[in-house]
């Protein structure tokens, strides 16, 4: 079984982001970048499937700037076999490269690579869209199982437990299929130093997004990026009685 794992390079989840002074986007320079946490979980899941003897090859792909190859190296240090970097100079967080374009680019790569399973993050923590996996599934006509917290592959199908608003739902999808990961699927490993060294020698293909036959004119024009309404810190109260008094008489919420 061959697994295809699309990943994205994003601002690290620990960073408090800064809005550009002209409100045209989020400051990306001199900021710590990382692999999108959900995608790291996707890579980990693929590596576990390989370790358990179910998968034979893991291909990771990212679309982004030249530097995005860092996240491919990270994924290869975790255990992916090879990487594909699709380069673009355009912003991949907001205002330029959009989920629909990414889904179309991935579709074309998947038609060449012919994986049995695609595992990807449910959302990227920059634009928070939560769209690409579902779009890809619809474009390919492959079944989907999103927000996965457990994946069991058996023969030509995969049983997936999904985290949904009402609880947990279990589905069985025929492969090839698209799965998207939720937080509780697994806890990604740290790559060991020897594996980081080994990853540097693993094959990495570079392609240009412009070479794909896609219309890359954004459908959504980014008008501005602004601060959310500010919430002022309130006051500290002394004790439980003071709290109850405030809630009753000032906020009037109880």
């Amino acid at each position, binding site marked *: 079984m061959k697994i295809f794992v699309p990943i994205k390079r994003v601002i690290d989840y620990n960073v408090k982001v800064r809005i550009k002074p002209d409100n045209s986007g*989020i400051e990306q320079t001199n900021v710590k970048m990382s692999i999108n946490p959900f995608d790291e979980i996707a890579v980990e899941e693929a590596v576990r499937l390989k370790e358990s003897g179910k998968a034979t090859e893991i291909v990771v792909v990212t679309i982004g700037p030249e530097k995005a190859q860092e996240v491919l190296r990270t994924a290869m240090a975790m255990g992916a076999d090879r990487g594909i970097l699709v380069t673009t100079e355009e912003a991949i967080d907001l205002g330029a490269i959009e989920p629909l374009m990414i889904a179309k680019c991935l579709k074309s790569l998947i038609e060449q690579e012919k994986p049995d399973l695609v595992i990807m993050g449910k959302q990227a923590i920059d634009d928070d*869209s939560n769209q690409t996996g579902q779009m890809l599934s*619809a*474009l390919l006509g492959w079944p989907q199982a999103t927000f996965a917290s457990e994946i069991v592959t058996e023969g030509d199908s995969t049983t997936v437990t999904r985290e949904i608003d009402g609880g947990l739902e279990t589905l069985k999808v025929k492969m090839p299929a698209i799965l998207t990961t939720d937080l509780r699927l697994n806890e990604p490993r740290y790559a060991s130093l020897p594996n980081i060294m080994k990853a540097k020698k693993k094959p990495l293909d570079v392609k240009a997004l412009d070479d794909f036959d896609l219309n890359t004119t954004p459908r*959504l024009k980014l008008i501005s990026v*602004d601060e959310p309404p500010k919430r002022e810190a309130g006051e500290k109260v002394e004790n439980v009685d003071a709290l109850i008094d405030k809630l009753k008489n000032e906020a009037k919420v109880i």
Partner: protein
Amino acid sequence: MSILVIAEHDNEELKPSTLNVVTAAKEFGEAIDILVMGENCQKVSKQAASIQNINKVYCMSDAQLKNHLAEPLTAGTMQIVKGDSYKYIMSPASTFGKNLLPRISALLDVQQISDVTEVVSASSFKRPVYGGQAIATVESNDDVKVITVRVTAFDAAEAEGGQAQVTEVAFNPTEDFGSTFVRLEVAQSERPELTGAARVVSGGRALGSKENFKMIEDLADKLGAAIGASRAAVDAGYVPNDYQVGQTGKVVAPELYIAVGISGAIQHLAGMKDSKTIVAINKDEDAPIFQIADYGLVGDLFDILPELTEKL
């Protein structure tokens, strides 16, 4: 030229989230149709028809739609959308809408706008990005706008008094969609539903165990509140996954939100900072949660919780 709202329901009851989407849809000032897909969903269709100011309701009832799997729902929606010239297709940004709408968007070759919190004009919208650390205003130049709506950003539409006509439509597709439903584990609860609750009490990692989490339940029951949790509390198994509040969990905006033993990570704040009144109980006076709390109480939750529950 009108609006199609895809209803969220469980074949028995229309979910309140649909009412919030209708309010968002009204901002466009055009006729609103509602599509109810499921099995034996006639009752839900009637509920949809009694929402005020609805043009018509499509009821598509079929065994293949029973479990609301994304693939057949997509086929059902495309069947309706092809026969009409809808300008807007909308659903809640719940796991239901998130699972379905991007598929419709891709098949229509348009770029979906996720998690809309404000309709600025017929084609421009506000939506939170970077876990709510910024608000993006975007203008769509697609002919059809596929939108998921952040439920807490819009009031519920009036659920009674409307008299829209219900049209039954057959589900035509017969293909094998490749996915089958196995089971659903629903956490049954007498408490209010988290997303729509007027009061929420949330517990974090500091609770330390499932048994201790009962202290959160006691306070919640005293207040008639729903229960929420941080990711750390869910990961540790104190509560089920659907209690998680945050960037990647549920978004809530109650009148009163009480955060107990929660530090206030960006990802948690993303799901609750639009609450009207926020109370934080934490033993660390520098915990980031205090920066957004209206009332902060510094101290040990194991002393404070029982006292608070007792005195209320």
